[in-house]
């Protein structure tokens, strides 16, 4: 599967190497198409199966071996999922938690990113490394004590527990994305405003903030997706009333005795839609943001 390209003929000596012939170029093309086809099969077949299963009537799901092309299509499972009041509760929790997380993460990280970008102060570098490295701490370990801490403050089974943790865990990436945005804003602009007599608050809120709006939206979507996708924190910190969709789906559809696969697949597709939409809106900033967050110190 790791084929990059087919091996070209071994060169006997460097001088004798011929220019690329048409035949060799053709062979490279073929190798390319074959690797593409293999990877495409690996990448897309599971998605196809997700879709097909969600559309298969229950009585046909448990036939073995399964048929690759559905003989009958039914939307019953989508109706089942959308008609389940529990799922709506999880959906509501997911929306509340993810939206507030997004807003809060943007608010906190834009200030931090601005400070890192436009100010030089003692301890700046260490603080930046602390922010960056905090995404490396194992979350399963943090979870154990977060559970105790939240229990102590009576925050278990509240939205706040989830919002605070999701916001904090998205900070490293959001701060880095936004620092990149602020870096791109010319200092002269800020200086001009300063000469005109604007104070630092004014400068940030009426000049920098509007200019950074696209970056803020991107960071917000990122935080939203983080909150929407999380499983382990929601499973542990949110009680039954505050559980979001990912653990909610496990509770609803997976049981020792029998799992309602088609309904689970339908629900899975429904859960994936907001993430895909967020991504389509986000993709312009995505590569730059990720690369910056990952690569730059």
């Amino acid at each position, binding site marked *: 599967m790791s084929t990059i390209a087919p091996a070209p*003929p071994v060169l006997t000596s460097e001088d004798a190497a011929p220019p690329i012939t048409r035949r060799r170029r053709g062979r490279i093309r073929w190798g390319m198409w074959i690797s593409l086809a293999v990877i495409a099969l690996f990448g897309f077949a*599971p998605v196809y199966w997700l879709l097909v299963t969600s559309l298969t009537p229950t009585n046909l799901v448990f036939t073995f071996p399964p048929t690759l092309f559905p003989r009958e299509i039914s939307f019953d499972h989508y109706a089942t999922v959308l008609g389940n009041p529990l799922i709506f509760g999880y959906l509501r929790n997911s929306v509340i938690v993810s939206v507030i997380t997004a807003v809060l993460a943007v608010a906190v990280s834009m200030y931090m990113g601005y400070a890192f970008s436009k100010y030089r102060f003692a301890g700046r570098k260490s603080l930046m490394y602390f922010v960056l490295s905090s995404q490396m701490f194992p979350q399963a370990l943090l979870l154990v004590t977060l559970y105790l801490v939240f229990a102590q403050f009576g925050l278990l089974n509240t939205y706040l527990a989830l919002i605070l943790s999701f916001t*904090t865990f998205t900070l490293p990436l959001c701060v880095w994305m936004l620092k990149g945005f602020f870096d791109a804003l010319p200092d002269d602009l800020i200086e001009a405003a300063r000469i005109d007599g604007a104070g630092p608050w004014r400068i940030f809120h009426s000049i920098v903030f509007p200019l950074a709006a696209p970056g803020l939206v991107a960071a917000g979507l990122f935080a939203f997706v983080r909150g929407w996708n999380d499983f382990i924190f929601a499973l542990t910190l949110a009680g039954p009333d505050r559980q979001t969709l*990912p653990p909610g789906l496990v509770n609803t559809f997976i049981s020792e005795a029998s799992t309602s696969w088609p309904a689970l697949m339908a629900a*899975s597709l429904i859960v994936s839609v907001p993430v895909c939409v967020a991504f389509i809106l986000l993709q312009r900033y995505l590569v730059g943001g990720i690369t910056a967050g990952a690569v730059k110190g």
Partner: protein
Amino acid sequence: MTSSSVVAPDTAARRKRGAPLSERTFLTFLLLPGVVLLCAIVLYPLIRSLVSAFFDESLLYPGMTFVGLDNILAVLTDDFGRLVQQTLIFTVGATVAPFLIGLALALVLNQRFPGQRFLRGAFLIPWLIPGVVVSFLWMWIFDANYGVLNGMLITLGAIDSPVAWLFQTDTARAALIIAKTWNTFPWIMVMMLAALQTVPGELHEAASMDGAGTIRRFFAVTWPHIRGVAGLVILLEFIWNFQHFDTIFVLTGGGPAGTTSTFATEVYDTAFKGYDLGHAGALGILWMALLTVLVVLYVWLSERGEKGARR
């Protein structure tokens, strides 16, 4: 942070005009919310859990008794070797496989051909799907009774009877790596495509004029340009996989018989199923020690990368 001196680009001019006090207040305001959150949600819990490694502490009853190194010694003599091995198997597998696939795909999609832009987008789907859904999907594919994998292999005649992929030691490990690989390779593709943009086309032409073949050109021209990003991608993936939880927890729960458990699932189980916080903390300390080595390496590499970029 309190001792911070605000030094904006035009230091001297502004110092004379004054107003450093309001600047300093402003800077504190900028940094404080983030710092408070990071300390409360990351730093404090981290320290707290590392401290509990030295105590006998349980979720079932209050209070803690100092036991010194007992917990850590117990972990070291008990499961440590097995956990390191199992965590490494998963981490290495789930890093190398998606890297090779992602790189191969990036090389192909870096060529110009009809539909190439569309494919770049479409291949991101496995990465966009929420982690839990990825787990559900592969759980269904690997299902022993009705899974499509068994169905296909039986139809093709590769196996005679259905295999319980997730309930046998070897296949369960492979299954986890496959599921995680499927989820990760698009991200690596994106990163490597970004890196490939930095390779100057003229160099390739010059190299093929000199008669270098595809593989030769890859190692002589392409690889030196993308090596930096590749290294960081591999390291980041390694660090993330080293602490990965979701896929393992949902697909195998660390089973069969604990053979796919890693530090992440073991810490979780020890704390929330065994209620033994001291033991979980001890596992955490050792886990963190291994991770610290990786993080130091990461910081060092990224610092070097930035210096290289500035030059």
